[in-house]
């Protein structure tokens, strides 16, 4: 049952067909917010896929960043959204292996999906974010400090971090810009990146807990948040009050 809330907000979430994005979309929709979810897949039935009438899906494949940004801007028009309260740019992809074995195509692919696309999407939705003095939330990664086995992936996340740091200052009084860096989380991301996690996976944060922690950091409007284990645990019982995101 959807709980009653004071105000239903407009929330955009990229990469919402799986993992953190999928769970975030459902969590916000269950509180009565309107969610536009994006992904690279072609879905035949949004309602079946997400199980909520509050979630509308649009295809925006970020490997074509200009087209993805345009698709999102057009969807906003189609849904008659005049403002966005919260945009979570979450879609990302990775590759794992020795950096000398990363092909030019692979390097290009990750940079395009993880960095170029969010930059162009942020630009495309800027007017709508300004209209609500909304919040732009980038999803980074703790790999942002550097990772030998995910060199390009780590670089793209560091790119987002630098982007956010500078844009936050630039957009002061127009929209809030934050970045949240999850640590290893039990989604399918690693398998998709070609990494076998094995037993280590046990130590990863459960997806649901990571989602709680992300929502808490969004509510608190942190500038930058590393999702440590402690923060994850202490977020388990944190929830939005009436009227909060």
């Amino acid at each position, binding site marked *: 049952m959807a709980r009653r809330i004071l105000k239903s907000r407009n929330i955009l979430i990229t990469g919402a067909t799986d993992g953190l994005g999928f769970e975030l979309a459902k969590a916000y929709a269950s509180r009565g917010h309107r969610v536009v979810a994006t992904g690279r897949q072609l879905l035949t039935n949004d309602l079946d896929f997400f199980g909520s009438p509050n979630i509308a899906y649009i295809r925006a494949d970020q490997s074509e*960043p*200009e087209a993805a*940004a345009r698709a999102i801007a057009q969807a906003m028009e189609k849904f008659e959204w005049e403002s966005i309260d919260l945009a979570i740019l979450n879609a990302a992809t990775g590759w794992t292996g*020795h*950096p*000398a*074995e*990363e*092909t*030019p195509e692979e*390097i*290009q692919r990750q*940079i395009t999906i993880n*960095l*170029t696309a969010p*930059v*162009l999407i*942020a*630009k495309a939705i*800027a*007017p709508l974010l300004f209209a609500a003095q909304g919040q732009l939330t980038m999803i980074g990664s703790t790999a*942002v*400090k*550097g*990772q*030998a086995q*995910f*060199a*390009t992936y*780590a*670089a*793209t*996340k*560091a*790119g*987002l*971090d*630098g*982007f956010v*740091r*500078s*844009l*936050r*200052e*630039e*957009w*002061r009084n127009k929209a809030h810009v934050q970045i949240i860096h999850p640590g290893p989380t039990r989604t399918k991301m690693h398998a998709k990146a070609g990494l076998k996690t094995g037993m280590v996976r046990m130590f990863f944060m459960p997806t649901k807990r990571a989602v709680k922690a992300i929502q808490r950091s969004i509510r608190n409007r942190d*500038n930058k948040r590393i999702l440590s284990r402690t923060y994850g645990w202490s977020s388990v019982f944190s929830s939005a009050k009436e009227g909060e995101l």
Partner: protein
Amino acid sequence: MKALITGAANGLGRAMTDQLLDAGHEVWAVDRDTDALDALAIKSRGSCRVILADLANPNSIQRLMRDVKDVKFDLVVLNAGISATGRFEEIPGAAYQKLIAINLTAPLVLASGLMHQDNMAPKSQMVFISSLSHAVGYPGASVYAATKDALAIYAKSVRKPFKKRGVGVTAVFPGPIRTEHAERYSPKDAKANKRMLPEDMAKLILKAASKGKKELYAGKGAGAAKFFGKLAPNMMSKMMRKVIFDKLDSNTY
């Protein structure tokens, strides 16, 4: 010694190229500026091989990789870079795509490709030119700052795996340099004498590379910027906004 330098025709890259040539080394100079490359080739009487390449174009990078297939470099400096300054949301998307391609994709593809193709001599050094913005942020150039942070972290990520194959990695964080690049993208009233001369910066970088240093923060105020950037990052980006973004009166890309 054999060196490969990208963005070698002008500014900092040119200063490094000149110094290496003067010291009797062989330089492979990569740039898209044909006239400046010609001048380099003529001046150096053969010790400088010029390679015309547009680093925004993946095919051009591939061609460059084929051109140097059999060379073993002792030094590679991934220096080429452009910028885009102004209000983030007003600059065209195509300018950002080009910026990311030249400042980030190209050096990553080259670094990885040169390792893969076995182009690096034993005990060689690979140098990534990031920016002091890595320490202080850069409101008014958020995508430029993004590419330079990404490059810094890539350098950090590959340092160990490259070292295992005998290649050292140096990341350089230069403060403002007195080049055409800086003139173009800075507020009009910015003082040129607050910027280091490219020749001085080039000297520091080549020295750091020859010593195998991991990091070099160089230029006027670089030390202080690094210190305060770590200590009080928010204060530093606020200050950067005041000295740069608030004074930019036009978008340049």
